[in-house]
Each structure stands twice: as C-alpha cells, then as structure tokens.
C-alpha cells in the first residue's frame, strides 16, 4: 500500500456547505505502519530510558536537565525528581530543571500513575545520575591526576576528599554525551550523607501558580489557533440525525464540523465557540441502555460475567467457615465516581499540511496517548509529538486523552491549530469514571474469637488490554482496537491480619455502563473500605477495642508502628465500639481507625478520625484526622505531607458526597450542584505523621493514604451513632435511614 496516500486526509471527501464541514470518511487506518518505530534522537540525545543521556544532560555551566515521561500533576514530583538526581550529581536541586512528558525529548518511563512517579521515574533517574556520578569521578580523576577513591562530588565539582582544588562537572562533561547505559546497581549516596534527599524544599512551580504566570495547557495558545467546542450527544451511544446550521447564524466566524456522529464548532473567538455549541440545534437518536445509578448495585450482582478470577486462596476458607461456631457477613458497595477535575480538560493540536502533528496535553501518559492517537488517526508515530503541559489535577485519567483526540480531529479536519476545552458538563459527564464495586465479605471465628476464615467476593468490571476508546474517534466512526480497564482493582481484598484461611474471588462483569478509568487508589479504595469496615464489625461484635483488635493480629513491625503512632498522636481512648457516651449537645461523637498496607506490599498507612454525627440532619462532621504514613525513604517531607493530606481530604469528599448519577441514557450529575464535593467548612484538621525509613526503598505516595479513609470514617460513625454505613457516599439521607432502623 502506498503509505502516504493511504493515510493523508482525503480533502475531496470534505463536503463544504456554507460554514459547515461535513466529513464522511477521512482517516483510513493502518495500525501496523503507524506503530513502526525507529530509534528516536533529540538534539543528539537518545530518547531512551536505558541510556544516561536519555534521562539527563549536564550543561557547561554545571546546571542539569532531566528528561522524563513522569509528569507533575500537582503531586510535587518536579522537585522530588530534582532532589534525587541532585543527590547523586553533587549539585544543588535548584540547578536541576525537569522536562516532563514531551514525547520528542523525554524517554518513555511509563505513564504517571499508581504512585510510580518516584517509584519508577525517580529510581531510574537516580540510577542514571549515580551512573553519571561514577563517570564524572573517573573523568575528574584523570583531570586531577588522583585516584577515584580520593575524590568526591559536591557543590557541582569533583574534588579531593581531603580538600584542595577540584574541577567543575560542567567542564568535565559540559553538554557532551556520557554514552553509558544506566547501571541500576550504580552505588547510591548512603542515607547518612544525604544532602538533597529528605529536605522539605519548595516546589519550583508554586510561585508562578500563585501569581498567574504558570502556563497550563488551558493557557497555551498558538498563532492562528481556533477555539473548538464539542457538541457531545445528550446520551451514550446516541446517533446524530441532523443539525440546523442556521441556529448559529449571527455568531461571528463560527464553523460547524461534523464527522459522522462527531459534532463540534470552531471559532476564532472562544466565547463564540461556547455560544455556538450551546445554540446549535441538533437532533439525536438516543438509546436507553443504562441501568441507572440507583440500580447499579443490583446490576453489579446480576450482570453477565466475563469470568471468575481467584485472586487469593490460602488454606480452605469455605470448609473452615462451615465448621466454625460463629460467622459474620456483610455487603459493601462503592459507586461510580468522577475525577471531577476542577478545570475541564483541554488540549491544543496543530496538524500541519506536511503530515506532522503536535498535541499539547496534560495527559498523565503522553507516550501512550501518542501511540494511541497515531494508531487511531493514522499519523505515523515519528510525525506525531505530544507535549505535556500542566493541567488541572487529574488523579487518574480524566478527560485529557479524549480532549486531545477532539483537538487532533478538529485540527486535522479544518487545517488549522485548534484548542479544545471541555465545558463543565463535558468533564462531569464524559470523563472516564472510577468503577463501581460490590463486595460480599464473610468471616468465621472460633470460640476464642480468632478469625479462622475470611472470604471476599467482589463484583468488579472486567479489564481488557488496550487503550481506552477515544470518544471522538468512536463518534467519527474511526476503527479503534481498544481495551477497558480501571487499574489493579482487585488488590487489598484480603485482610492484612493473621488469618489462616482466606479466599478472594473477583467476579468480572462483562460490560460496563460507563467508560472506566483508573481513579486514585483504583479498587483499593473500595476493597479497603470493605475489609477494614468489616474488620471493625468483627472487633465490635467481639467487644474488643479496634486498635487492640488489629495489633493482636499483626506481626510486621512497620504495620504495628503505623497503628501505634496513629493511636498515640490521636490520643485514642481504648474501649470497644460503639461509644458508650457519644452525646455532645445535639451531636453524637465517636472515633474510628483503619489500617492497610497498600497493595499488601507498599505503604503502611493507619488513619484515625473523630466525627460528630447530627442525628436530626444526618450530617457527618469530621472533626480531626490523624495519619501515620510509612512509604520507606522520604524524598521531600513537605511534598509528601501535601500528598497525604490531599489523599485524605479528597477521599473524605468521595466518601461523604460523591456518586455519579445517571438515568437510562445519560449521566445526570454534570455540575457541582448535582455532583457535590467537600467544601471548606467541612475540611477537618489533618495531622500527618511521616515515618521516614531512609534505608528502605521508596514506594510513592500519590494514592496509598486514599485507601483507608472511607473505612476509618464509617468506623467512626459506627462508634458515634451505632450504625454501620456500607454504601458510599454517606449522605445525610443514608445516615438518617440507617439511624431510623436502630
């Protein structure tokens, strides 16, 4: 096949009628060609994470630039990565710049998710810096005519340990290449000598963000750029019947763009695009195929399954439970939730006549997005560049990838650079959602109150490999091989406590009503809610204090320390739940705790909180939260604290308020009134205790503290009011309904 002819936009298929562009067939698919890859090189540097030069460059003035696919979505990894590299290169972190997520210059270290920014990104960069350090010491040894063993690297120079003249690293390597593979075993600076790691350095982007100078993708413009707005269908899978172009007459310089069921407007003026998208009269053929959010738990239990997956089977839980003198069981449910990013997703795309294309995007995975866009839109990989710019916080995969496809499709169609920003209803309505999860948990106890068997059955959406289907491509009728997925959602379904017989089974639901994505602590958030809520139920049934109950079943000293330090700082009052004297004025007061080890192999987190429940209104006020957090080595304690605080407060919002509402056709929670989130008057004091373990590997912190929040909250509510909340969100209506049953 003729490669260029096959892939070029077929202008003859553009039917221009008035201001409208209607494309019936535009982008033939040639996936094999689009993925053909050559070894890319940027400015003489290999774009290869296995090469030192791929991840860093040391300039003649001794300053350093890092290149990474890990991006800072408000998490503070920009400064943390600089600290990790600076530590090994013997420079001040202020001398280290970080280029993030530009597919032309940054090697692919994977997308930014699952707290891998530092786990993988930081660790690989640090290894590259340590490899460079070793090379610089050798170069310095030759220059200074001293053995390597006599030399050290500090303040930007290689110098004798004993003192005396050194040589600047900028003069040793100064923008030349190391031409070295990253040695993952290159010796690292020992913790006792850390100069950059462990310091609470300020994030470099905060001053610009606080003064309106930071350029977010929402702020980025190009000469000749048009503003696009997408006219999404009113409901999932609706077919576009017709539109009335005369309905946008009078709005200046607007064009309507239709590609099959994809409908959009472009205009020179952003407000004109907004107005036109609203004013455009469209006729859709809608479907009514969704279960509705009120039926979602029943749907989850009864929907056709792809298969059952045994996650864990230790001992013989079912048999032991059958013979046990005492069993307990409960059902927990977590609804669909939205990223609900504060800023609607935005992207700018510039598809040129020469076949090259650049997309500016806040995607958490620009390399993955580039590969997907390349395949779907038939733009050869080497001609497509995706450049990361900061966006609104995204916590997984909000609308960024979709809006990038929107902008690309529009730019390719109109032949000009196009900026698309979603409207609020687009973001709430169409961002891929965190999945619903239904869990049945059962425990069997012997006559001494030991948990002898534990069974978890979870109903969760099935995952299929491949990128998420892009909304605009789907509407435009472009072929796309796509997957579905929402992350590793079956982890932490087992208790972290000593139990001999445990079985966890995931019932994987074949189809999902709404498109899914990873959303902060995917799966773990609901599984820990169920496991730790149910653990609390067992402790209460046994009339044992919740802290003592957990400590009696843990042997890992890091787990024990996390719980002890949380309880101590919280001033935990040891007694069984519920609180025998909860009443304070017109509210009921109680405290709860939850603990988990993230993915059963990463962070140790314990969270305690105090709540006041207003029995009349059903409102829960969280008064204070204490959290001990152990993620191994701490790179930047203030950045880490910020992340942990954010995990906790955001998850209180998710637990108290958040549920995507939808009817038979469409998402109906499309703004901040219908999808409320936590407000300032509800924000509690949060006390974070960092347990720094410099000798242990770091395990990241973007997600872990999210997981125990809902259980700690439900456990505190039980302590206060004697009612057990097993369905999120804990709305006043649900609280009152639970209280009415007591």
């Amino acid at each position, binding site marked *: 096949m003729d490669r260029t002819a096959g892939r070029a936009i077929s202008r003859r298929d553009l039917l221009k009628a008035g201001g409208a562009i209607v494309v019936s067939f535009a982008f033939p698919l040639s996936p094999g060609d689009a993925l053909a890859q050559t070894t890319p090189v940027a400015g003489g540097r290999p774009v290869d994470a296995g090469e030192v030069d791929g991840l860093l460059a040391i300039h003649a003035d001794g300053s350093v630039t890092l290149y990474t696919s890990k991006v800072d979505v408000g998490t503070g990894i920009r400064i943390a990565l600089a600290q990790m590299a600076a530590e090994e290169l013997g420079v001040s972190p202020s001398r280290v710049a970080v280029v993030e997520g530009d597919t032309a210059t940054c090697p692919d270290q994977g997308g930014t998710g699952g707290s891998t920014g530092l786990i993988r990104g930081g660790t690989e960069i640090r290894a590259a810096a340590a490899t460079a350090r070793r090379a610089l010491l050798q170069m310095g040894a030759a220059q200074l005519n001293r053995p390597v063993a006599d030399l050290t690297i500090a303040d930007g120079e290689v110098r004798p340990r004993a003192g005396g003249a050194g040589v600047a690293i900028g003069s040793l390597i100064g923008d030349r290449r190391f031409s070295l593979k990253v040695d993952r075993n290159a010796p690292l600076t020992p913790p006792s000598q850390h100069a950059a790691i462990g310091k609470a350095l300020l994030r470099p982007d905060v001053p610009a963000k*606080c003064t309106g100078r930071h350029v977010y993708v929402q702020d980025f413009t190009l000469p000749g750029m048009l503003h696009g707005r997408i006219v999404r269908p009113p409901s999932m899978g609706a077919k576009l019947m017709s539109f009335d172009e005369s309905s946008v007459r009078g709005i200046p310089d607007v064009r309507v763009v239709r590609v099959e069921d994809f409908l959009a407007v472009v205009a020179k003026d952003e407000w004109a695009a907004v107005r036109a998208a609203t004013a455009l009269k469209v006729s859709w053929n809608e479907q009514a195929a969704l279960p509705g959010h009120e039926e979602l738990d029943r749907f989850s239990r009864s929907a056709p399954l792809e298969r059952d997956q045994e996650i864990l089977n230790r001992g013989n839980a079912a048999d032991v439970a059958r013979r046990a003198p005492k069993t307990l069981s409960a059902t927990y449910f977590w609804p669909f939730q939205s990223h609900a990013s504060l800023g609607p997703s935005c992207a700018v795309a510039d598809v040129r006549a020469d076949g090259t294309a650049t997309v500016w995007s806040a995607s958490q995975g620009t390399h993955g997005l580039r590969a997907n866009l390349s395949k779907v839109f038939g733009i050869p990989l080497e001609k497509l560049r995706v450049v990361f710019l900061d966006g609104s916080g995204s916590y997984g995969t909000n609308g960024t990838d979709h809006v990038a496809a929107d902008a690309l499709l529009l730019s390719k169609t109109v032949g000009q650079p196009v900026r698309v920003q979603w409207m609020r209803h687009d973001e709430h309505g169409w961002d891929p959602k965190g999945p619903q999860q239904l869990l049945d948990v059962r425990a069997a106890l012997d006559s001494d109150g030991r948990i002898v068997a534990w069974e978890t059955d979870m109903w969760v959406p099935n995952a299929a490999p491949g990128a998420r289907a892009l909304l605009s491509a789907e509407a435009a009728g472009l072929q796309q091989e796509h997957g579905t997925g929402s992350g590793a959602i079956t982890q932490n379904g087992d208790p972290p406590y000593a139990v001999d017989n445990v079985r966890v089974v995931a019932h994987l639901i074949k189809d999902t009503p709404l498109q899914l994505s990873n959303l902060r602590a995917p799966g773990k958030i609901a599984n820990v809610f169920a496991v730790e809520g149910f653990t609390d139920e067992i402790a209460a049934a046994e009339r044992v204090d919740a802290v003592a109950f957990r400590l009696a079943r843990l042997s890992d000293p890091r787990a024990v320390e996390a719980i002890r330090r949380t309880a101590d700082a919280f001033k935990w009052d040891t007694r069984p739940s519920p609180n025998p004297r909860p009443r304070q004025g017109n509210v009921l007061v109680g405290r709860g705790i939850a603990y988990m080890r993230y993915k059963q192999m990463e962070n140790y987190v314990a969270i305690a909180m105090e709540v006041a429940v207003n029995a009349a209104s059903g409102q829960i006020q969280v008064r204070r939260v204490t959290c001990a957090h152990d993620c191994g080595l701490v790179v930047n304690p203030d950045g880490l604290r910020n992340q942990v605080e*954010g995990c906790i407060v955001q998850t209180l919002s998710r637990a108290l308020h958040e549920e995507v509402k939808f009817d038979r056709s469409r998402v109906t929670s499309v703004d901040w009134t219908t999808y409320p989130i936590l407000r*300032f008057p509800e924000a509690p004091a949060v006390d974070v205790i960092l347990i720094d373990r410099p000798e242990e590997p770091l395990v990241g912190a973007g997600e872990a503290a999210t997981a125990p929040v809902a259980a700690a909250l439900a456990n505190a509510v039980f302590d206060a009011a004697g009612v057990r909340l097993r369905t999120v969100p804990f709305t006043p209506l649900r609280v009152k309904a639970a209280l009415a049953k007591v």
Partner: protein
Amino acid sequence: MPRYAFRLNGQPVSVDSWDPAQPLLYALRGPLALHGPKFGCGLGQCGACTVLVDKTATRSCQLPVSRAAGRDITTLEGLGTPEKPDAVQAAFIAEQAAQCGYCTNGMIMAAKALLARTPKPTVDQIKQALDGNLCRCGTHTRIVRAIQRASLAASERSDSGRQV
C-alpha cells in the same frame, strides 16, 4: 463591534466584544491574555475565575463584559509577581498551599477580599469565606493556614507601625 473600557490591574484597557453578554472571563483570558483567572465551570459554582471588581471578589464567568465597563478590575497578576509576590501570594508560597494550582487563583482572590474586610479572621471565618471556592486536590488545610499566615504577617506589620 462595541468597545468596553475599564481599569485592569491599575491600567486603563479596552476590549471589543461582539456580545455584551460575553463573560468578563473570556475577555481577560482572550484579548487581554491573562492566565490567572481560570475557567472552571462557567456556572459561578467553583470560584476558579474569581477577580476583584472594585475590591469585591466576583465570579468573572458570571459578569458580562458590558457590566465590567468603568469598573476597577484586579486579577491574580495584578497582586504580585513570582519575584515580588504580595502578602497573600507569599503566604500561599510559604505554606505550599497548592497542588495542581488550578483553584489557587480563586483562593487567593477570595482571601484578598476577606482580609480586606476582616483583617484577623478566625479559622471558621476563613472557611465560611471560602465556602463557594472548590478545591479538588484536597489542599484545604494548607489554604486555611496560608490565609492565617497572611493575616498574621499583616497584623505584625501594622503593629510595628509600617503600612499594611
């Protein structure tokens, strides 16, 4: 096309708009090329677009450009620079009271208006003043601390006799 003149960060400016109902936000971010005020919802629900109109915190997504005419508009850019931030901006930087920072504009502008009318707010007053400003990253505790810090810094300055 009608032209609307107002003061923006101390300077007289004018913008042309085809639609008198065009929200001020689009004029600020478009022809006036400012980045401080952000589009968050366009519904007056989140506060990301907040500017000061004659010192009152105002949702620029809800204020028609025609009604901004003749007014005194201050945006985040008008307070200070990264090198010379104003007292509230400096307090936000010192407390690292941002994650993604998309809501920060609204938080700082709301704090400016609060501190102008209540120089020494309690924590509850701060939280009430920010009730209409949403933060999705969960930076609430730091934002409250930053406003307390700004208030304290201002009162220390006035206590020592210097100008606030």
